[in-house]
């Protein structure tokens, strides 16, 4: 190698490309992606790995589904602007809790809203309540087109997961004829944590520990991202077990120290529980692979401006990496997200997230 390069050292000093060319090339081949809130605060590009962490029932899978719908919808269709990306999504279900009806519901709502707002803009007063058959068949074609771009695979254990990652590239080319997968979603990366930890490397060359499995997973994902730049969205449920104190243990330990000012202690105890439950349990190779992190929490609260004024659980999201100081609040009702505006004021104002066009207002 030294012999070859020695022939023309000046070739080393030749410029490959200028920074401007590099920037424009990367912006065109890996354009920034706008995801529905609350994922819209941090700039994301293909090749990023976003980890959505939170306790059970904090809305992680719902976020994945809304992002998936955003990806599979086309940008524009029959004159109606949807603002989607029109690319394929690969959903790897490790929890085996995916429900396709929920995805269908979210997609249909988005399509219906898009068509309705388009009609309102065109000023069609007679199409207010009723939809004619032509409209329905148009919506159905769009629906089936979009659903064809959603690819799904189930894995029941870690070896299957690794095998799936290896074959996803070749299998997806058979299914999706267009440019390829743009989003890779993994539901619950910690699904096999206990199974992998419990397994000991009993046999010499067949033993698999959590460390080696995570290394293989990261290796396969990196290979996949090299061939096909995609945005990776991963949900992570917290792991409770030996070494962490669960809520019960915490109550038992700290019950001795309950002071008269119970509200103050209660708040800090809740915060401490949360930091304990967000303890990082994935090996460091995974932690260094992840480029963005967002934490979700859920708590009960009133939603005053909603018509029926029910008590809805309020979800908060917090970007950990890159660290943003503001926390967003949102609530999920009728499979739509309602964002809180004006966090600083006394009474939060709730605003439904309808389409990408009103995101700029948020």
């Amino acid at each position, binding site marked *: 190698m030294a012999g070859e390069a020695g022939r023309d050292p000046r070739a080393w000093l030749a410029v490959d490309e200028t920074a401007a060319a590099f920037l424009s090339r990367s912006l065109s081949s890996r354009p920034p992606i706008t995801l529905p809130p609350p994922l819209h605060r941090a700039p994301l590009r293909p090749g990023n790995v976003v980890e959505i962490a939170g306790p*059970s*029932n904090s809305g992680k899978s719902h976020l994945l589904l809304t992002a998936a719908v955003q990806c599979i919808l086309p940008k524009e269709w029959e004159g109606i602007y949807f603002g989607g990306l029109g690319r394929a999504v690969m959903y790897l279900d490790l929890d*085996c*809790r995916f*429900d*396709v*009806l929920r*995805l*269908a*519901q979210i997609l249909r709502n988005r399509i219906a809203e898009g068509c309705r707002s388009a009609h309102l803009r065109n000023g069609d007063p007679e199409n207010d309540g009723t939809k004619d058959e032509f409209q329905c068949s148009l919506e159905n074609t769009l629906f089936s087109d979009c*659903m*064809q*771009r*959603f*690819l*799904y*695979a*189930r*894995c*029941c254990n870690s*070896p*299957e997961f*690794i*095998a*799936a990652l*290896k*074959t*996803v590239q*070749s*299998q997806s080319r058979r*299914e999706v004829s267009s440019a390829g997968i743009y989003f890779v979603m993994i539901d*619950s990366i910690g*699904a*096999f944590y*206990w*199974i992998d*930890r*419990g*397994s*000991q490397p*009993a*046999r010499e*060359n*067949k*033993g*698999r520990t959590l460390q080696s499995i995570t290394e293989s997973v990261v290796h396969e994902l990196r290979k996949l991202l090299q061939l096909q730049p995609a945005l990776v969205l991963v949900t992570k*449920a*917290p*792991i*409770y*077990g*030996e070494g962490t104190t*669960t*809520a*019960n243990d915490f109550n038992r330990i700290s*019950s001795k120290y309950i002071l008269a000012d119970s509200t103050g202690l209660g708040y800090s105890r809740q915060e401490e529980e949360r930091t304990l439950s967000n303890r990082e349990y994935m090996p460091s190779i995974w932690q260094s692979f992840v480029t963005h992190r967002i934490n979700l929490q859920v708590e009960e609260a009133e939603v005053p401006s909603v018509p029926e004024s*029910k008590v809805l*659980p309020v979800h908060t999201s917090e970007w950990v990496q890159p660290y943003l100081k503001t926390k967003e609040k949102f609530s*999920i*009702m009728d499979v739509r997200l309602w964002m809180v505006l004006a966090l600083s004021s006394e009474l939060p104002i709730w605003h439904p997230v309808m389409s990408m066009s009103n995101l700029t207002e948020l």
Partner: protein
Amino acid sequence: MAAAGGGGGGGGRATTSGCGLKRRYAPHDQEEETMNQDQSSKEDWCGRLWNGMDLLKDVTENKHVLPTGLEGIDTLLGGGLCQGQLTEVTGPSSSGKTQVCLHSASHAAVKHMGVVMYLDTSNSFSPSRIATIIDGTNDLSDQRGFDLPHKERLKTMMRSIVCKSVFDIFGMFEVLHQLEVSLLNDKVKSGGRKICLLIIDSISSLLAPIIGGKYPQGRSMMISVAMILKKLAYKHNLSVLVTNHMVSAGNGAVKPALGESWKAVPHVRLVISREHGSNICTATVLKHTLLVFPLAI
């Protein structure tokens, strides 16, 4: 690499459990053998890629809803127990969880929906109660046994409920493995009908003793059971119903047993409570397509 992974997965589950017994977990050994055979070919991966429209078609055509026979619970569940999903019913003791199980079993038997497999961990299965429930249902809706005498009809219905007693986690692994093998081999069960409902009364009494404490094997067995149940439900269009009990959550409150790790496992969770003769049932979250917030009836 795939073979090593399969071997590792099989070897992992065949190691000693927390109590020092070495048991053979046959389903995973079987997986290991098939993985060893498919060493070189990546395309022989046992799963496949589905696209959205295939999934939707599969759900609407194959996965039906099994009503439990209790109106309030059926309304909360959106029609009944979904095939391919794992439903959990939890509640304090004597709140009616076993009654829900018995009602679902008898309703499935009456409507000839298929064979019901009832795994009983606490000897709470009562054939006389099943007979009473079946007698109580409207006989006019049953068309198949139209000309048989009443006793014969009752016998055929009760024959489609198979009850097995399991008393520990290893027994349950054995039963589930046998079920999996017989379903894979397409054996005819009990008169030519396929199993449609699997009820495990009080799965928490099997799992709760092993998950506490410092050993990770207990939790790994719980997650393994959960994955086996979900795989059975999805592949063979079964509906799985399990019951859970409540433990104290500090400050006098109660919460479902089996901890936070189990929260992510069932598709639907219901909480039942009873107050002196009236049944008050609340549904907690974790349902995908229905309402997200709690609803009480």
